[in-house]
């Protein structure tokens, strides 16, 4: 079973990388980009076949390692 983890910065956490991307988009002529927030996607290939258990396992992995929950939110999608 495959799970996809999305890791994003919490609201209010400064994202200088997102800001640099926004500037670069402006330079390329993409007008009207008011804000950019960047994050991570992590794909997990799990032996688990029960989607509920797979989701719970991925969430535990986020809490222990994949996300820094002080500054990051995560969400898990079973594919």
């Amino acid at each position: 079973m495959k799970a996809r983890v999305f890791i994003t910065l919490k609201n209010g956490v400064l994202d200088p990388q997102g800001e640099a991307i926004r500037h670069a988009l402006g330079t390329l002529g993409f007008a009207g980009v008011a804000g950019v927030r960047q994050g991570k996607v992590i794909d997990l290939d799990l032996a688990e076949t029960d989607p509920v258990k797979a989701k719970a396992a991925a969430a535990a992995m986020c809490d222990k390692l994949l996300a820094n929950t002080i500054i990051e939110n995560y969400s898990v999608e079973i594919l």
Partner: protein
Amino acid sequence: MKSAVIVFPGSNCDRDLAVALTQATGRQAEMVWHKDATLPDGLDVVAIPGGFSFGDYLRCGAIAARAPIMRSVVEFAKRGGLVLGVCNGFQVLIEAGLLPGTLMRNQTLKFVCRDVNLAVETTDSPFTNAYGNRRVITVPIAHHDGAYIADAELLARLRGEDRIAFRYVNARGEPVAEANPNGSADNIAGVLSANRRILGMMPHPERLADRQLGGADGAVLFESLSNALAVA
């Protein structure tokens, strides 16, 4: 005083740290590989070096903080052992949950490598007792992810408990915005644990710990450790 330096794949300040510890204590620092499960017996100080452990994958220090040896380091710290984390070592200690807050990408997005002025904000610690009245010191920094971020409550607690060890300052010792190289909250360069026996700092005291290297302000930190243990 018996000290050990933990070595991860990608550590690159481990030998400098060992030299500084050995010079200050007169006893050879031991090198401990990250895959070891236990620390040498009778240790007084564990030092986590700078570098790019595990290529900074996922987040700086995140993988190293889950290495086998770190379980023993956390136990050692919980027993009141002295733990020093420099640069990547600071990131590892935060990821291991031994120090509060978090370290993020420098606000300028640039890797910064230069000498900075630091204010010694407290001499009430085993790492800073020998600085005495010398408030402003020079120590190099070299990092890409050194912006110390903490919420208002944590900042108030760190201030209230006198746990800010070092701040980035100008030559007059003022923590102004221009002296802040990375966007750290409150110009914080180093913090202590609640029991004052764990120090994490982004600047590299081991890189200016010998007059032949252009300065010895960093050596005082290692002398402080030696003092603290001589008294104990």
